[in-house]
């Protein structure tokens, strides 16, 4: 997917005025949050359960190279084939090669965000191989050529009218209908034919278990199970951080993933593959290819602070709780990953200079951090990226700040250590700040603060600051009555 992260403010302005996005955002995230709370309540100690998940992911990332080697060894022993791709191009070319070698005309795809990142679908279709997204939300987004609105429900905001129209045009919907269930059934019929005849399927990977060489997918629809049952060739694509140490660890993470994501105790299907099918099985893949993708993550891994981003399990709890996401929806973030997890990941994959709004458009309210089952400290990362950006870090990227701003903070830092200068500065700023004040209220200040005043007033800067009032306060005679 082509990043549009530099268009953030423009996309935000558009989405805040989009009645359909706004209507959706009023309803869905609150429902998801409620479901999440209910789902988590099956744990007798929710905090411990979340903290345990965070500990598993911390260990997985701390031991990443060793666990990847162990995973590969066991996957190979199971009969899978493993391909390592340094970047998007290597991954896409390899998968294309597999498809061409097998004379495949189309593939069915289970949801895979890393292939959105690498742009696999474009490469396949440019080479005459049709990539059918089969997760209903991904299918709708694909047919409408829309970016994802939410990492779990990519087309969940699309109104039924649009779904009806596109299904009539492209998915053999015969009778127009606005009933989501009937529309879903039409998609079922249309895609069923694809599942039936598919020769090569491509899935993502939720977890890769090092202990046994097993890949795990969670889903509700069944499209991933089809993609793993019907074709002779299965390709499963994972980014390097998907690995977890043991099956027991994977089970705990699956419990957390399902509850944090949809509030379910378990999704309808969890499928665990340890190699291709055995010789005597009639369905299942004869060949299983596991593609391990780096695409910028070994670089992230070098930074001890930034690498916690790799702990993410893609549950979207942070999207659903984020008050900023709740106003603007997924399009504004401009790439495959949205919400707070996108705000911490996209800057590392795309560079800090291309994503400056992503790590600044947050109040640091900490709601994301408070719900994250992987223990990621998003606010601390936002501050870290801002710092790296300001210092134009050669490794993570960054763009020099406006000279006016640099000068301001230099002066500010100097005054801060010299109270007489600090207080003098305040005295001098007062007439400027209060220029338009009337009856103690400021309704306008020109310049960088101007936008505050579109919808808000400010009390005028006090004629006597607290600092000045203290001179009298400290002299006041008072009688204390201890309670």
């Amino acid at each position, binding site marked *: 997917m082509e990043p549009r992260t530099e268009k953030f403010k423009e996309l*935000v302005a558009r989405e*805040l005025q989009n009645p359909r996005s706004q209507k959706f955002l009023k309803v869905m995230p609150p429902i998801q949050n409620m479901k999440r709370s209910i789902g988590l309540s099956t744990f007798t100690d929710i905090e411990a359960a979340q903290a345990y998940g965070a500990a598993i992911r911390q260990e997985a990332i701390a031991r990443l190279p060793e666990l990847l080697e162990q995973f590969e060894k066991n996957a190979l022993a199971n009969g899978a084939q493993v391909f390592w791709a340094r970047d998007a191009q290597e991954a896409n070319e390899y998968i294309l090669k597999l498809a061409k070698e097998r004379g495949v005309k189309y593939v069915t795809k289970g949801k895979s965000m890393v292939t959105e990142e690498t742009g696999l679908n474009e490469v396949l279709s440019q080479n005459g191989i049709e990539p059918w997204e089969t997760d209903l939300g991904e299918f709708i987004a694909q047919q409408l050529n829309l970016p994802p609105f939410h990492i779990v429900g990519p087309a969940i905001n699309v109104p039924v009218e649009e779904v009806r129209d596109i299904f009539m045009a492209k998915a053999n919907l015969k009778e127009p209908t606005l009933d989501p269930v009937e529309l879903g059934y039409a998609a079922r019929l249309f895609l069923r034919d694809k599942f039936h005849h598919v020769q090569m399927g491509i899935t993502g990977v939720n977890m890769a278990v090092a202990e046994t060489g097993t890949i795990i997918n969670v889903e509700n629809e069944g499209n991933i199970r089809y993609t793993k049952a019907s074709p002779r060739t299965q390709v499963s694509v994972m980014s390097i951080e998907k690995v977890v140490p043991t099956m027991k660890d994977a089970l705990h993470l699956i419990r957390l993933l399902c509850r944090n994501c949809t509030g379910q105790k378990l999704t309808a299907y969890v499928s665990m593959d340890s190699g291709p099918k055995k010789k005597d099985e009639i369905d299942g893949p004869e060949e299983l290819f596991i593609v391990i993708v780096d695409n910028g993550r070994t670089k992230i891994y070098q930074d001890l602070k930034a690498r916690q981003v790799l702990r993410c399990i893609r549950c979207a709890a942070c999207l659903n709780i984020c*008050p*900023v996401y709740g*106003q*603007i929806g997924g399009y504004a973030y401009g790439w495959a990953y949205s919400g707070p997890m996108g705000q911490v990941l996209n800057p590392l994959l795309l560079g800090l200079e291309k994503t400056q*709004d992503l790590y*600044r*458009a*947050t*109040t*640091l*309210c*900490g*709601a994301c*951090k*408070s719900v994250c089952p992987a223990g990621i400290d998003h606010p601390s990362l936002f*501050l870290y*990226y*801002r*710092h790296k*950006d*300001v*210092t134009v870090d050669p490794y993570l990227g960054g763009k020099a*700040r406006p000279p006016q*701003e640099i000068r301001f*903070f230099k002066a*500010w*830092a100097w*005054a*801060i*250590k010299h*109270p007489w200068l*600090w207080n003098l500065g*305040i005295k001098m700023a007062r007439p400027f700040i209060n220029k338009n004040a009337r009856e103690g*209220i400021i309704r306008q200040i020109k310049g*960088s*603060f*101007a*936008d*505050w005043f*579109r*919808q*808000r*007033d400010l*009390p005028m*800067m*006090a004629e006597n*600051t*607290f*600092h000045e*009032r*203290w001179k009298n*306060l400290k002299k006041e005679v*008072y*009688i*204390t*009555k*201890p*309670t």
Partner: protein
Amino acid sequence: MNKVSLFIPCTVDLFLPHIGEATVRLLRSLGISPVYHEEQTCCGQPAMNAGYQKEAKKAAQHFLEVFGEDEIIVSPSGSCVCMVKYHYPELFENDPEWQRRAEEVASRIYEFSQFLVDVLHVEDVGASFSGKVAYHESCHILRGLKVSVQPKKLIQAVKGAELVPLNAADTCCGFGGEFAYHYADISESMVKNKVENYLAIGADLLLLGEPGCLLNIGGYLSRNHPQKKIMHLASFLADYRREKT
């Protein structure tokens, strides 16, 4: 009682000095004679949030020199307390001596309601107010300091005050410092939601503990619903005390 040192955030110093005065009056009524170091300037949060950590460190060093000898530091702000408690030790991670000083001070700093309830063990300050009040849970106070029970205890101990539930009380009001004017359209959308939730419950007064939130929500109310009231918890408790000093 050991000397209590006041840390007055610049938002209060410049725009809301009455909150500082209220804090002083209230502490005095509880038998505390707070000191105020006049050399204090700013905790450094604006620079920290803007990514200027070198400059933020300078502010931190000044703060630690000013407050370094104090046994207890109290502030009517959660975000400034979080800055000192959590960010100062991080800022000095490569400087063991300053980090030690930062950790010392971090262990002695309290948000206003936290200090009253957890340290002074006071819930009833002798205030009374007839009416319904709602409480907005500021992000740094709630999630940063895990302080939520304390302000509510203080409110519930006010004679005649009825604490009514506020929908999405713990959702951010959209201030976020620079965010409020750099991403003003998102910020406006957030504060509008907060105010709609306040308007929906027929409360007489909205209380909170964070000056930034007060400027934000208060600023929106002033422009759009000037008859609706909002107060900082310290001002509320001081102003409605039955025995005036």
